[in-house]
């Protein structure tokens, strides 16, 4: 499988990224170089191996649902570009 310039544009749209026109070929080449390394996985016999997402057993870690102090909205909103009341503000994109 080879990543083309069009593939780069398609994946960039999925990832909400944008690249300059002159960088597209280079990025496709980089991705192909890395996928070239990855292609060796085809030579590994994995018929007997289940996919491993984590080294930990995949069981839910439940806890009691007890009320406790949490982050103050005023605190975390200080990290926002700006705030509007109890929310992070964003520019208006729709007409009223």
């Amino acid at each position, binding site marked *: 499988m080879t990543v083309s310039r069009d593939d780069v544009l398609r994946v960039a749209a999925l990832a909400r*990224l944008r690249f300059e026109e002159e960088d597209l070929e280079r990025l496709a080449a980089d991705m192909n170089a*890395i*996928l070239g390394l990855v292609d060796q*996985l085809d030579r*590994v016999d994995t018929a007997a191996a289940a996919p491993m997402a984590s080294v930990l057993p995949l069981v839910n870690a439940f806890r009691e649902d007890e009320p406790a102090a949490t982050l103050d909205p005023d605190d975390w909103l200080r*990290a926002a570009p700006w705030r509007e009341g109890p929310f992070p503000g964003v*520019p208006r994109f729709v007409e009223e």
Partner: protein
Amino acid sequence: MSSLGSIDRLAAGMAAGEFTAVELAREALDRIATLDGRLNSFVTLTPERALAQAEAVDNARTRGETLGPLAGIPMALKDNLCTRGILTTCSSRALKNHVPPYDATAWCRLEAAGAVLLGKTNLDEFAMGSSTENSAFFPTGNPWDPGRVPGGSSGGSAAAVASGEVVYALGSDTGGSIRQPAALTGVVGLKPTYGRVSRYGLVAFASSLDQVGPLARTVADCARVLQVIAGHDPLDSTSLPAAVPDYVPSLTGDVRGLKIGVPTEYFGMGVDPEVASLVRAGIEVLAGLGAEVAECSLPTTAHALAAYYVLAPAEASSNLARYDGVSYGHRATGGRDLEELYTRSRQEGLGAEVKRRIMLGTYVLSRGYYDAYYLKAQRVRALVSADFEQALGRFDLLASPTSPEVAFARGERAGDLLRMYMADACTIPVNLAGLPAISVPCGFSRGLPVGLQLIGRQLAEATLLRAAHAYEAATPQWRRVPPLAAGQERGWET
């Protein structure tokens, strides 16, 4: 007095009234002022806060209060660990001005133990890299030769510890980011078992692989720091509930009867012959101390790097989706719609390597490629893990090089992605299996430090630390001062 001493010596000095925590903090800040222009270990310095913390320790001592185990000891945090009220940038333009509203658990525990934070250290942006050259701000120099890289991604932490700017620092390790820079700068770096240390407040890169751990100049110092940061955290559901043993008493110096396996594959994989022979000589030292050494094989290891470059980018592409410019971080101006606000904020905020990995991760997770790449890599991960399980059934520890090569020159690998990625060939398999591993200095090649990696069973940090400590005690000749810090050796001894 010297900020270069070990934790126990400095703690004893303060307890005996030889010097105060404030004096220690001032000395460390002076060293940073002298050295950091050449090293650039730090992204942010916190001198006022450090002096206030140190003064609080001194006052508590005067009042006769019981002090924490790390009280008054100057340290630093990798800048991907959240600190309430202090910039946490991940060395990214996306978080250049980000001040988190909460603390990482590992830092909370250190602070409660009396730690004095001098600042936040440089890293490859979002911990993606092996040289700290991917920082959006500036590269960090290696104290052994500032024209060379300190390794990465915890390069700022490693350089700060190696040069004596701080006594210890925390790093994070997703594919070798604690151990490889520790090896390249001649310090000790420990990646604990996945889940041993809470990841709460560690900015996520690849969540199934990330782990927080210490870098220090001695094994005992690593043990003392691990003691404080290890343990279950209700805020991280992947942190392990297992009890934390006392690590310092395990530093007995005795490795008689310890079974050490030497996986032959780890001496291929582009390992420099001089590095290989120093590591083999190090293993011989352990054998001379009574360890039982034998060769072994981890056949799937050769494919671990390939599996990692599917799994880590896949997880990263998901984790970094949050940097959209809405709730926090860099926001672009002037977009026509929300979609463009996201895209332009990400375009401007994220660097080339981060974008490359997001692209790769998005690609391998996209329709038509998920089975061929992502599921296949997960299956290979299971085989890598099974290899370790089998070998560690026969052996207590495995020994290998930490990094295939010594520190390379800045810019040398910039145009060669795969060669850069190879820097983690010996460390990445350990992350896939979630095991603990430590890097200890084992000699010098062309004047640059080399690291010996020891890999242990799940939660067997005590055994790792015992072997590393015995090795360190038997090889005092590898405890050297970088030329840049020369003339300030006083107190460097343990």
